[in-house]
Every structure is written in structure tokens, then in C-alpha cells.
């Protein structure tokens, strides 16, 4: 070994690494035999979080305690977990109906669309374009800037929910298909669980610094076609 290699090796005890988390404690529960596991639904939690929210989630030990798989998009985290908190059925609140100009002023970017929507709703910095009757929409296209923080959206699916990694216009996306979906908003430091207005599948994808979310009762290919036509 050369002198330089010896000096590098000597740094080994001096370099400060972050404390190693107790990963064994977390994964050992998943590794234990569970005779009743088949009876418990495997559920999927989908967190659509802006950057700061992702940091808050990462800092929360509870948020990490039982996840089985984790996918990331810019500004979004999708977590497959075993158990979800009890979710009350309440009407999804996508925010206040605004004109396009006012909505764009609030969110700070030009809204993308699939044609003229029936309503534009804004909650925090997330805008949702609603197609169809607002109380029973056929399709909802939500969008937010992935680099800002104004709330936390978490979506959950029941047994059989599937997560596929996809590409939309060359950028990464996730297609979620399954049975039930929930949306969770983290506002003012507290989590509110809400059941979505649609029981459709969800496509999440990035376009530039935006995070887009399309929810509709469509299959993967149709969702991808719709996403490609968003202008």
C-alpha cells in the first residue's frame, strides 16, 4: 500500500458518518413469520409531498415504522405500507373554486390542462382541474410546484393496489391502480384524512418542476395517453 493509501485508510476512524439507524428493529418485524398476515390486507400509502413535507415525513419515526417499499418522484413519495391509520369517510376538499387567472396567481405558475375544465379548485398551492360535475367528477388533474410546501397529500389504496413505474414525456411517473384510495392532507401541523371523490386510478408524474396527478377511472394506457396530451 502506498503512503497515500495508508493516509486514506488512517482517515477511517476520523471520518464522521451519521449515526446508523437501528434498521434491524424495523425490518425484523417484517421478517417474522405471520400466520395471520394473509388475512391482513396489504395496503399502499401514497404520499404526494412537496420537498419540505418529504423531509418532515423522513424525520418522523412513525412514518418509517412499517413501510415495505418506497418510490420517489420529484416532490412525491409513494410508500407501500402494511397498515394504515383508520380513515374516516369525508368528502374530499380540493379547495375553493376560482377563475383560471386567480388560480394561476395563487399557485404561481401557468396551469396545464386537458381542455377547458368544468371547475378549477385551489387548495393551498395545489390546483385541481375538475372535468365533469364537481360533485361527481370524471377526471381530476391536480398540479403543484414540487419545490414548494403548502400541504401534504397522502393517498392510500387497499388490498391489491399496484404501483407501476412509468415514463411520461421522458420523465418519471407512477401509475397506481387498485381499489380504495384515500387522500391525507397535512395542514398546520396536523393530518386530516379524507376519502377521495373518485375511486379511480392515479397517475403521478413530473413535468419540469411540477408534480402532476391525474385521477380517473381509466386504465394505465389511457392514463398515459391523457398525460401525454396535457398542455
Amino acid at each position, binding site marked *: 500500500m502506498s503512503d497515500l493509501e495508508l493516509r486514506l485508510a*488512517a482517515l477511517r476512524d476520523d*471520518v464522521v458518518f451519521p449515526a446508523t*439507524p437501528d434498521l434491524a428493529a424495523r425490518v*425484523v418485524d417484517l421478517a417474522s413469520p405471520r400466520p395471520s398476515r394473509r388475512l391482513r390486507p396489504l395496503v399502499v400509502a401514497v404520499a404526494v409531498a412537496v420537498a419540505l413535507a418529504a423531509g418532515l415525513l423522513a424525520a418522523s419515526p412513525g412514518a*418509517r415504522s412499517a413501510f415495505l417499499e418506497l418510490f420517489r418522484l420529484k416532490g412525491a413519495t409513494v410508500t407501500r405500507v402494511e397498515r394504515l391509520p383508520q380513515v374516516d369517510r369525508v368528502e374530499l376538499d380540493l379547495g375553493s373554486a376560482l377563475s383560471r387567472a386567480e388560480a394561476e396567481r395563487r399557485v404561481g405558475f401557468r396551469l396545464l390542462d386537458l381542455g377547458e375544465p368544468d371547475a378549477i379548485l385551489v387548495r393551498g398551492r395545489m390546483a385541481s382541474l375538475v372535468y365533469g360535475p364537481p360533485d361527481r367528477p370524471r377526471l381530476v388533474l391536480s398540479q403543484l410546484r414540487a419545490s414548494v410546501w403548502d400541504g401534504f397529500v397522502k393517498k392510500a389504496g387497499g388490498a391489491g393496489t399496484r404501483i407501476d413505474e412509468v415514463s411520461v414525456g421522458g420523465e418519471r411517473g407512477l401509475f397506481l391502480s387498485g381499489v380504495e384510495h384515500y387522500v391525507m392532507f397535512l395542514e398546520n401541523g396536523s393530518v386530516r384524512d379524507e376519502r377521495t371523490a373518485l375511486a379511480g386510478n392515479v397517475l403521478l408524474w413530473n413535468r419540469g418542476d411540477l408534480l402532476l396527478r391525474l385521477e380517473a377511472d381509466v386504465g394505465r394506457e389511457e392514463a398515459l395517453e391523457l398525460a401525454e396530451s396535457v398542455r
Partner: protein
Amino acid sequence: MVGRPPTEEELVERARAGDGAAFGALVRDHQEIAFRTAYLITRNAAEAEDAAQTALVKAHRALRRFRRGAPFRPWLLTIVANEARNRRRAGARRDVLTLRAAADDPSRVAAPSPEDAVVAAEERAALLGALDGLADDHRLVLALRYLLDLSEEETAVALGVRRGTVKSRTARALERLRAQLGEAA
């Protein structure tokens, strides 16, 4: 009479048979190297933690595909490093490696004089700074080899390259590091 602790091979066999405690023991033995490998790749503690944890869960699922008698650590590091590389996102905050102050380590033999101690600390800091300033490929191969003391084979699987590539890349990285430090080969 106290029985001997199970060997790694025995733990792997038990874990394959569904013994969660055995898998936990395996994880405890390797979680530090798994986390640090992920950290050197992602240079972000939160991403490293996510990567290591997800990799461990995937490793548990994949245990049945693990070749009996093969060393466990390189196999695990392959999964961890893949996960860490997939999570390394452009634009994410990157941590900079720092050195422990000599006073933090009472076991360290004191330098002959305060002046020598200062010089030694400055030299170590300069070396780490130069290492950190290398291109990613070069920084990573040296960090894995010398800071984590991974073998060539383990470094190869962590980087997703052949063992020969580790050798040649290490040699080039050392050359660059010498140049950064203004030292002759």
C-alpha cells in the same frame, strides 16, 4: 454451558426458513456497513436510510435466491448499492464528509506537541477535502475501498462494475488525488 453463537451461514439458513430473529441478527451485523455504503453513494443521510431499509426488506424477500455458502455481505451490498444509486437524485442536498476532532477521541495518541497536532489535523482535513473534491466515480471508489475498507469484490458490486474496473479506477483516482494535493506520484 453457553453454546457458540450461530455462524453467518447458519443465520442465513434460519432466515431462509422464516426465522425473523435470525434475519434480525444478520441485519444487525451488517446494518452499519449497509447504511454507510448507501450514505457514500447518496451523500444524504435521509436517502441513505431509506435506501438501506428498503434494500434490507428486498433482501429478505430475495433470500430464497441467495446462493448457499456464498458470502452474505457482498450479496447484501449489491442490493443496498442498487437501491442507493436509484435514489440518488439530481439537485438533492449533498452532505460533506467531516472529521472528528482529535479531542473527541480519547483513545487517540496525543501528538508530540500542540503545533504538530494542528499540522496533523490540517493534513487530514486537506486529504479529506481533496477526496471530496474528486469526480464522483473517483471519490466513491476511494471512499469505499479506504474509508469503509470494502474489498475489491465488494467495491465492485457496490459500484456495479467489474473487479478489474475497480483496480484501474482506484489507480486513476489515486493519481488525481495526488495531483489535487500537489504531491508527486
